[in-house]
């Protein structure tokens, strides 16, 4: 187990290194002078030169990349901003705020969004999928199948504004989506994020309903289920005690991979509802060609995905004792 973890973590670090280097080098291909953002309205050429020096932009690219890497572990000292303690991802070219601080600041928003949506996806998707499998061929199954076909075809940027218009603008059933800290007002956190959760999870929920249903149907045809039935176990307890365990294993694996997609969906959802999360930060960084912010967000995003994948692998072993990690 330890050996497995070490190997996975080392592999993850290599992937992160590659991603950061690629992003860093690609972005310097853009002919843009971030120094202007630090220069007053009437910007003198000599002030620009000074700022470029302050930002370390007069050094060769690989040296700049090296400084960036070292800064993560050892911190840096900028003439323009003063000390930047580790983990230092630099300062935004656009807003001049520390990148790490900005990401930490917005992290709860994206985390809340993803956790809430995951909860909806897993609970609702798996539940309806199991119900559909339980009542195979009956009206409930058909309704579930039908809605999952439509649900899987919906787009966040269409459903989002549409639901916002009807539920928020017109009916006033829900407050306009925004982020309320869970620690300050749990109920407000829930009501303000409910709509984004639903919108973000619609496509995924539909897919998980379909998957769970087919997995369950498959499991019910397995030998061990037949054995259990033959031994006189009620179909209810076979269904809820054994079959779902077998069905969950592939679902969890797929969910681990889907988390990356979910994070991507979070970008669109945040944009749709103007939520101040990491996705919105990323879109703004792209619009501003804000390299430090972009690098920071990309690395943190990729790191999240890599870590989640490792967690899923471990979880996999816990659910299915047949899997031996080693």
């Amino acid at each position, binding site marked *: 187990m330890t050996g497995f973890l070490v190997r996975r973590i080392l592999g993850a670090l290599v*992937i992160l290194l*590659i*991603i950061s280097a690629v*992003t860093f080098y*690609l*972005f310097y*291909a*853009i*002919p843009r002078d971030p120094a202007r953002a630090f220069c007053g309205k009437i910007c003198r050429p000599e002030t620009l030169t000074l700022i470029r020096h302050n930002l370390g932009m007069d050094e060769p690219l690989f040296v700049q990349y090296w400084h960036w890497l070292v800064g993560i572990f050892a911190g840096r000292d900028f003439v323009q901003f003063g000390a930047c303690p580790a983990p230092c991802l630099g300062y935004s070219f656009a807003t001049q705020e520390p990148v790490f601080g900005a990401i930490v600041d917005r992290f709860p928003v994206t985390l809340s969004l993803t956790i809430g949506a995951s909860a909806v996806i897993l609970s609702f998707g798996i539940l309806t999928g199991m119900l559909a499998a339980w009542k195979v061929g009956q009206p409930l199954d058909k309704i579930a199948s039908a809605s999952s*076909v*439509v649900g*899987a*075809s*919906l*787009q*966040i*940027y*269409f*459903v*989002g*504004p*549409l639901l*916002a*218009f009807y539920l928020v*603008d017109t009916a006033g059933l829900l407050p306009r989506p925004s982020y309320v800290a869970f620690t300050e007002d749990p109920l407000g956190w829930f009501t303000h994020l409910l709509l984004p959760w639903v919108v973000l999870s619609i*496509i995924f929920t539909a*897919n998980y309903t*379909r*998957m769970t249903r*087919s997995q369950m*149907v*498959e499991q019910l045809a397995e030998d061990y289920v037949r054995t259990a039935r033959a031994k006189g176990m009620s179909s209810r307890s076979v269904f809820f005690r054994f079959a779902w365990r077998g069905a969950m294993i*592939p679902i969890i*694996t*797929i969910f681990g*991979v*889907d988390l*990356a*997609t979910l*994070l*991507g*969906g979070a*970008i*669109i959802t945040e*944009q*749709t509802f103007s939520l101040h999360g990491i*996705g919105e930060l*990323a*879109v703004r960084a*792209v*619009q501003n*060609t804000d390299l430090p912010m*972009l690098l920071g*967000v*990309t690395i943190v*995003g*990729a790191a999240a*995905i*890599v870590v989640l*994948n490792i967690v899923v692998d471990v979880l996999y072993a816990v659910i299915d004792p047949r899997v031996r990690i080693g």
Partner: protein
Amino acid sequence: MTFPSSATTDAVADAAASAEPAGSGPAIVGRSPGQLMWRRFRRDRTGVVSAVIVLGFFLVAILAPVISMLYGKDPYSTYGQDRPGLLNPYGYPIAPNGGMSGEFWFGLEPGLGRDVFMQLVYGIRTSLSIAVIVTVLSTIIGVVLGITSGYIGGKTDYVIGRVIDTLLAFPSQLFLIVFLPVVEAAIVLPEEETPTWLRYVSICLVLTVLGWATIARLLRAQVLSLRTREFVEAARVTGASPGRVVFKELLPNLWTPIIIQATLALPLYVGAEAGLGFLGVGMTEPTPDWGRMFQVGANVYHSDVTYLIFPGVSMLIFVVAFNLLGDSIRDAFDPKTKR
């Protein structure tokens, strides 16, 4: 923007893996597997209806100029601005339902006052063509690299495998929006005009680069299982060249997963392309674009929700139809698969 997620591909992988090689399918004398598939498909009414709808969308895309001629409007004229009485001082259509009328069937675009119907028709043309190109390109690249990786094995397999792993670990949505400006900046100097075709090409390029990995991974697994099968071994023992083995022995057995994968991917690319438009990095004005209509719609929905309905519902119809069609094709290819 739902980028092709592995979830669906894994489902296909299961389906495809359980599919017997076409050669050993139910043997009815005198019919090729293709003919069998076609017969099964024709019996599937949902599939046929979906196919007609999907075909309709492609026809609209192809015949956009003809539609424009018959309808008497074009997607570029700013009717609302040129003619007083159509838009109010805030730029919204004065007539109810987003300015829908006998003249402007789907209403007017807030702000510029262009014809929504024409925007949609030409937008479908742009978006569908991108999706088709990307599907074809990423399938070809995925097939070539997947087969190469699986068939040759060894170091080649290792390298391609790692590239696939890295690509799948990328937060792909983020990279789509990050890379588009980079691709363009790398090609165009800042003082040169960015031609429309360049944005078109770079969207195709970026979607393809981030999209081929899923199908490649799937085909690699297929080839790995196929190449130890007796008929491949036999061909190799009898001295068939690698090219012959790949094209005559392996490829015929891979058509099913390839086609299924491609039908699954296309609606996802339509969504992905539209997602780019929504985030403001898709096709630029004045080229009509399905996705950019969502961006406009998301901005104006408080005052003019009708505008959002047309691109939204049409895309929903298209994707539902295409997904149902995909299901039917899968069933037709492999009647034994359970869903």
